[in-house]
């Protein structure tokens, strides 16, 4: 890919879907890809055992990936870091630019924090995360903040040890 291609935002790049099998119902604008499915759009990559894609008039609108687990990763140009995640089901809405991780979901911002729970919603435009859990033991939300290493902390004078 030429350098101008790679600096283009992911949403302005073609979407490539690779799989073992395909079952398409074109008039309905629906396709089911089966077996080692990999969806790539720029730096965004989603994998799953099976992916259902809605593509009315041949325009990709949404993709629902299921797997053990389905995985997601994307590179943020502004933060110069990878965002990765996995869940039993990942729904990518290309129109709204949102991601919904459902079932044993985990989303991690490289070297910063990670969030776990039954359901996590990520807005790619706003870069906001929302997690939903319930009172039951295995349905709670867990957030881990990674302390910044010294190199990253701004140089503020540390108080003298007594």
């Amino acid at each position: 890919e030429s350098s101008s291609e790679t600096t283009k935002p992911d949403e302005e790049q073609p979407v490539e879907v690779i799989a073992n099998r395909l079952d398409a119902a074109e008039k309905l604008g629906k396709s089911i890809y089966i077996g080692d499915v990999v969806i790539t759009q720029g730096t965004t990559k989603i994998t799953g055992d099976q992916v259902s894609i809605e593509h009315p008039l041949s325009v990709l609108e949404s993709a629902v990936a299921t797997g053990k687990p389905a995985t997601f990763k994307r590179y943020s140009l502004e933060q110069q870091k990878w965002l990765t995640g996995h869940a039993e089901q990942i729904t990518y809405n290309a129109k709204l630019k949102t991601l919904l991780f459902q079932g044993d979901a985990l989303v991690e911002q490289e070297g910063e924090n990670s969030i776990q729970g039954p359901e996590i919603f990520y807005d790619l435009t706003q870069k906001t995360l929302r997690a939903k859990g319930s009172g039951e033991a295995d349905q709670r939300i867990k957030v881990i903040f990674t302390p910044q290493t010294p190199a990253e902390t701004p140089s503020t004078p540390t108080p003298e040890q007594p």
Partner: protein
Amino acid sequence: MSKKLSWLLFILLSLLMFVLATQQMSYTTQAPAVTPKPLETYSWQIFDSTTWALDAQKPNQQNIINAKAIYYQETQKVAKFTEPRIIQVSTDKTTTIQSQFATSTNETQILFEGNVLMQSQSLNQTNKTLKTQQITYNSDTQQLESPLEVVLTDPKTRISGKGFQGNLEEGHYQFASKVTTIFSPTKD
């Protein structure tokens, strides 16, 4: 004396006949045994032709068959085409299929081979193109099938894979292996 002469003459003649005969034999044994190949006999054949097929049941649809050569075998109901181009025109859609060769059997199944190109242009659907090296079309079920790679394109997508089966009329098809689809980026 004359008796001796005629006897000698007789021997020379038979010797000569013998030499000729052996040479003839060696000649035939040297020539390769060419068994003439039975010519495929056709009931009829036609060259550089264009034929129209109109169907009383489908008044607003016609099929135009254009071919460099058509050879038809009545007994087995087999037709062989060279450079066929079949155009199906209906009120809202035109589908063309062309290839280097085609063979139709029992007048319902036709096998297209060599640079097969199928194009469908319709008023209410995106135009589609199908490319492959071999595909079979069943006119009863309108089912297409190919064991080789097939590439399906329309203005926004490109799908390729092997083991294609489907009905482009209904827009329902499968690929059995090696599937790659590319959706063009959308302009917001």
